[in-house]
């Protein structure tokens, strides 16, 4: 089956520090998505990546689709307390002939920001 490894599992950082987390897969995929989940809420889409080498920013967040198509990273610059939460990576694969997509999630990186 598909293996999606996300690291680190947890991080404790000081407010203002930069953060980096990554995902690696055993297979090649066409899309990487990064989500953030606040406590008690559903995951919210942060960034979507569609082709190898793509580098995309969303405010203080930057994500890249690895050139091998088997990995992706997410960076957060100048962290603030509201960055606290669980960050999930996911990749998609198409169901054969269906034109539709399965999402497989990593186990998440739990981020704690110390004011």
């Amino acid at each position, binding site marked *: 089956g598909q293996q999606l490894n996300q690291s680190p599992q947890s991080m404790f950082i000081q407010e203002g520090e930069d953060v980096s987390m990554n995902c690696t897969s055993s297979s090649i995929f066409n*899309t990487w*998505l990064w*989500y953030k989940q606040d406590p*008690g*809420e*559903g*995951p*919210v*889409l942060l960034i*979507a990546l*569609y082709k190898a080498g793509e580098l995309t920013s969303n405010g203080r967040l930057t994500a890249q689709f690895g050139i091998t198509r088997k990995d992706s990273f997410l960076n957060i610059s100048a962290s603030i307390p509201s960055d606290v939460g669980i960050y*999930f990576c996911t990749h*998609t694969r198409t*169901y054969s002939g*269906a034109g*539709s*997509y*399965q*999402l*497989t*999630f*990593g*186990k*998440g990186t739990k981020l704690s920001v110390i004011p």
Partner: protein
Amino acid sequence: GAGVSQSPSNKVTEKGKDVELRCDPISGHTALYWYRQSLGQGLEFLIYFQGNSAPDKSGLPSDRFSAERTGGSVSTLTIQRTQQEDSAVYLCASSLYREAFFGQGTRLTVV
């Protein structure tokens, strides 16, 4: 509504009872997913719908779990004869293409 809506937001049930969890996806979204999240864990895939059919139900943990979708819209996840290990947050997501949008989840507690 504008987003994915799930109901109830919280459900406490006695062991052995049946429960139904509802998901209203974003209007026009053809794909619908159910996930389960145990405390402090990642998202466990349960079932995927494309329209009203379920091409992938491989994540349903046992035959006590079933789901249906009607009218290409609302979906219901049913858990029969609930067990304590069924306690978790059940999340629903919908998508039109590759980006999925999640509801706030239903927290199920089996006592």
